[in-house]
């Protein structure tokens, strides 16, 4: 087990008073709390700070921590023989310090030590909630899919040793998701201890950027490039949708930015309805013109009285 210097993490002396510890914690919490700070490293830092404070704010835990002796941060160590935490942890059973860290040790220490019970009658402890992000394609959001989820959770093995074990399963994502949808999977977080309920898994679902479509809620948007002649004269053009291409009638005089709505061609909603698909018109011109095209455009320019900047005047 690697040693963590909780006093150093909080930036206080080993002789610090409870008030000094609380003050140091609050200052660091304001700086690094993931719900407050925008620092990307804040979450990991706050975890350390919270872990240090959870132990040092509690007289019994602080005394047990101090009894571990002084070590350098990151140094491999084992608690001294007959250390209080090892008895409390397993109700007298053999206890291994391999594959766990100080946080696990003190979390179970508090439960076992405060309320000494007979082995097998330790107080229940709910499993930890987990939060994960997963990405799905727009097609998967349209049809529904399954995603593979995998993470490590602390569990007791058959010998009663606390270990971090892989937790992997496939979960069904129903159709009707939107980008940024949050989903709760009951009981798929960390295992509860001693009869405690299993934790939950919070899944943040986002869409893999699509080559053609953008999703806003259940509506989809696609850029629809039109040749100048198609925009001026009107046209029927083939437009892809998630569910296959459709013919769209573009009215004469279509303008850049104008949206043509294709009802119910968006993502499915939970009430069996669908969002809409919007084709956003863009006027496209060829990167290079043939001699003939150049002549025709010149003739059009000479013949036309159209002034696209009339509103400037």
């Amino acid at each position, binding site marked *: 087990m690697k040693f963590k210097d909780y006093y150093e993490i909080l930036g206080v002396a080993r002789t610090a008073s409870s008030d000094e510890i609380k003050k140091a914690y*609050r200052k660091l*919490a304001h700086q690094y*709390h993931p*719900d*407050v700070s925008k620092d990307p490293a804040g979450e990991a830092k*706050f975890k350390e700070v*919270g872990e240090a404070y959870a132990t040092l704010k509690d007289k019994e835990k602080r005394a047990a921590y101090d009894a571990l002796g002084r070590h350098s941060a990151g140094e491999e160590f084992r608690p001294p023989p007959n250390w209080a935490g090892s008895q409390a942890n397993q109700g007298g059973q053999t206890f291994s310090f391999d594959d766990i860290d100080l946080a696990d040790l003190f979390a179970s220490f508090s439960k076992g030590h405060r309320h000494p019970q007979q082995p097998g009658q330790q107080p229940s402890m709910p499993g930890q*909630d987990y939060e994960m992000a997963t990405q799905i394609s727009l097609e998967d959001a349209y049809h529904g899919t*399954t995603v*593979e989820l995998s993470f490590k959770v602390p569990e007791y093995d058959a010998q009663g040793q606390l270990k971090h074990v892989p937790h*992997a*399963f*496939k*979960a*069904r994502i129903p159709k009707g998701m*939107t*980008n*940024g*949808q*949050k*989903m*709760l*999977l*009951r*009981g*798929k977080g960390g295992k509860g201890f001693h009869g405690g309920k299993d934790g*939950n*898994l*919070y899944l943040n679902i986002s869409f893999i950027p699509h080559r053609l479509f953008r999703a*806003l*809620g259940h509506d989809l948007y696609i850029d629809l490039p039109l040749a100048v002649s198609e925009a001026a004269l009107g046209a029927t053009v083939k437009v892809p949708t998630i569910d296959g291409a459709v013919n769209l009638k573009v009215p004469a005089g279509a303008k850049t930015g104008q949206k043509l709505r294709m009802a119910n061609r968006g993502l499915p*909603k*939970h*009430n069996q309805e669908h969002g809409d698909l919007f084709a956003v018109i863009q006027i496209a011109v060829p990167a290079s013109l043939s001699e003939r095209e150049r002549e025709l455009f010149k003739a059009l320019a000479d013949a036309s009285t159209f002034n696209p900047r009339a509103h400037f005047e």
Partner: protein
Amino acid sequence: MSVEYPDSILLDEQHEISLNELAELSGLSSEELYQLVDSGVLLPINPEAAIWHFNSHYVISIRTLCRLKQDFELESNSLALMLTFLERIRILEHQLNRH
């Protein structure tokens, strides 16, 4: 790896959960949730109903609220103010993602 169908709840403005579920999932007590309703910052779908239900999106903000309460040792009076800000941030972030 077998496909599982865990009991799932979509957390958004279209789905709902009961007060007891919200308490269980968020970590706040029913009494604390009643106080937030009394303060007018937590809105039941139908305030006249015998059993209150809420839009399930509250699970996220009230879990955050519960974390902040524990980590900053907040008093219950601060919770209503904090939830107002969390909800405002949620709505603004939602609007930002739509543009």
